[in-house]
């Protein structure tokens, strides 16, 4: 054939370097947020992430206080925190499962990019989004249900919120991974969101629930972080609720690891069994 001796040049791809990974994490995460989050348009965002949470808080505040005679504040706080699941669960599921919908998954996996950077980067926009929804939820609770937040407690409340939204997004990532294989990803996502309303002390005080339900709640997101947030709103300081917040972060980390394990398994299995292209 041709006589030119071709010495392979160094590829210009710097994939795998720290800088490339960080850029992929932050910038790539942001681009994929816009590309994959079905609700990123105002015409959908407003009804779904602002409208629906508003009425959810009002509904449970009304139901809870009517049925139990307790103060509406309990239910308002519980739901103000829970509505972050709209982003953490639905958002993360879409961010992952929609790759299959658009047929971009195999283009993505053919690149040399670090899988940690790709999927890790998707957390950040959704955590931010979830925080935003919760902050909005607290605003509604303050406006209509008289929930007062004292300035001194804001820091602890915020920390508890971050921990909770993180662990919620982490279980959302697990759900996203599962939905790569199952036919309807949003089914599991919807189910999870409803179950959070039942467990986790969001609407029903934990001690009212039977033992097994308390046990399940303790391994789900929200439970510990929510307790911390409730206590903080009531005036507790970091020394009192720090332990709960740490547990919540720990639960989130465990789910995040589970998610990555799941993605690695799915990718390996797809390479071995060619399951990538099934819609």
């Amino acid at each position: 054939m041709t006589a030119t001796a071709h010495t392979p040049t160094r590829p210009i791809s710097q994939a795998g370097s720290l800088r490339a990974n960080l850029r992929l994490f932050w910038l790539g995460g942001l681009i994929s947020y816009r590309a994959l989050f079905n609700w990123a348009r105002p015409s959908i965002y407003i009804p779904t992430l602002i409208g629906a949470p508003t009425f959810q808080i009002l509904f449970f505040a009304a139901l809870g206080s009517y049925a139990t005679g307790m103060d509406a504040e309990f239910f308002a706080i519980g739901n103000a925190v829970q509505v972050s699941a709209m982003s953490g669960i639905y958002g993360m599921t879409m961010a992952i499962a929609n790759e299959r919908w658009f047929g971009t998954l195999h283009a993505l996996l053919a690149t040399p990019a670090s899988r940690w950077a790709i999927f890790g980067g998707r957390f950040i926009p959704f955590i931010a989004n979830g925080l935003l929804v919760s902050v909005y939820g607290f605003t509604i609770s303050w406006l209509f249900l008289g929930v007062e937040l004292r300035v001194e407690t804001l820091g602890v409340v915020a920390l508890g919120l971050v921990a909770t939204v993180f662990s919620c997004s982490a279980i959302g990532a697990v759900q996203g991974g599962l939905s790569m294989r199952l036919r309807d990803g949003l089914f599991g996502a919807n189910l999870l969101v409803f179950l959070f309303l039942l467990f986790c002390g969001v609407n029903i005080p934990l001690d009212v629930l039977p033992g097994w339900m308390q046990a399940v709640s303790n391994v789900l997101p929200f439970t510990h972080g929510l307790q911390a947030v409730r206590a903080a709103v009531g005036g507790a300081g970091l020394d009192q609720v720090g332990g709960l917040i740490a547990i919540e972060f720990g639960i989130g980390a465990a789910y995040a690891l589970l998610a990555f394990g799941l993605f690695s398994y799915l990718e390996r299995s797809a390479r071995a069994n060619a399951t990538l292209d099934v819609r």
Partner: protein
Amino acid sequence: MTPASQPEVPAIEAIDLVRTYRTHTGVIRRRPLHVEAVKGVSFQVPPGELFGLLGPNGAGKTTTIKMLITLLLPTSGTARVFGHDVVKETTEVRKRIGYVFGGDRGLYDRVSALDNLRYFAELYGVEPADQKRRIAELLDLVGLTGREQEKVEGYSRGMRQRLHVARGLLHDPEVVFLDEPSIGLDPVGARELRVTIKGLVEAGKTVLLTTHYMFEADALCDRIAVINDGRIVALGTGADLKGAVANRTIVEIETFGVAPEAVEALRDDPEVIAVNMEERDQSQILLVQSERGTQITQRLLSRLGETRVGKVVGREPTLEDAYVHLIATTSEADATAARAAAVSV
């Protein structure tokens, strides 16, 4: 310059690649099934070559390509890109290859073309300082400059295809794999794509192209491998492949409602090598391969009997005829016999 005797590392190397799938048949009683999609494919592509992989649907083209680009693990056998094993040095391989596939899917519809390219630039680890320039160059190359801010969901099929090409070249890969890139493109778009592909090779890249458009393979490729039923049944330049049918003439007979018995009668003729039929709207075209072609036209027509006949044309065999011949003769052939019969360079 180093002399040509210096051994150079092949750009792509496939050694006895085998890929089987485990699947099931039946709904009530599921029986496990072993499907052998690729049964032992071997070839080498030197750097700078435009290599074509031709074959009918289901022959194993896409499976082979996916093994080469690290998306599928071979059941057995080895593949290397510039010496890097696709299974053991996956990241090194991925840094050096670009993957372009056809069709409507595979792009993020909701964001702009520019965002798609930016995202993949990050995925390929293109230096931030280079990204803007690279993206601009590629948009220019594929003719999308000025339209990059539009959302991909509004793109036509041709524009999507061009964006696929741009995406596959972001990190300036040395080897570019194109999987049926001109599917669904109109003739103008397809021709522009071919010009772009030729340009890539002229720039020193190695290109592996799968297609089932014969004229495209004939026009573009330096060498062609024909794959059928999971095996390579021919490997060589276009001229080599046509050599198998070079001493033949094709007589094209246009008929209106030809009966199967008449076609059989044609096949029975001792000098007829093969008869293939193409269906048109109201007519059929019989492609009769023989060595003496137009000299036996009268006999052929008489064998057709009462059949209404239109145009009769004699011509040289094309790559398509060679291909059809290869596929027909190798589809039922014994495995080892097919390998022995493969023409190689």
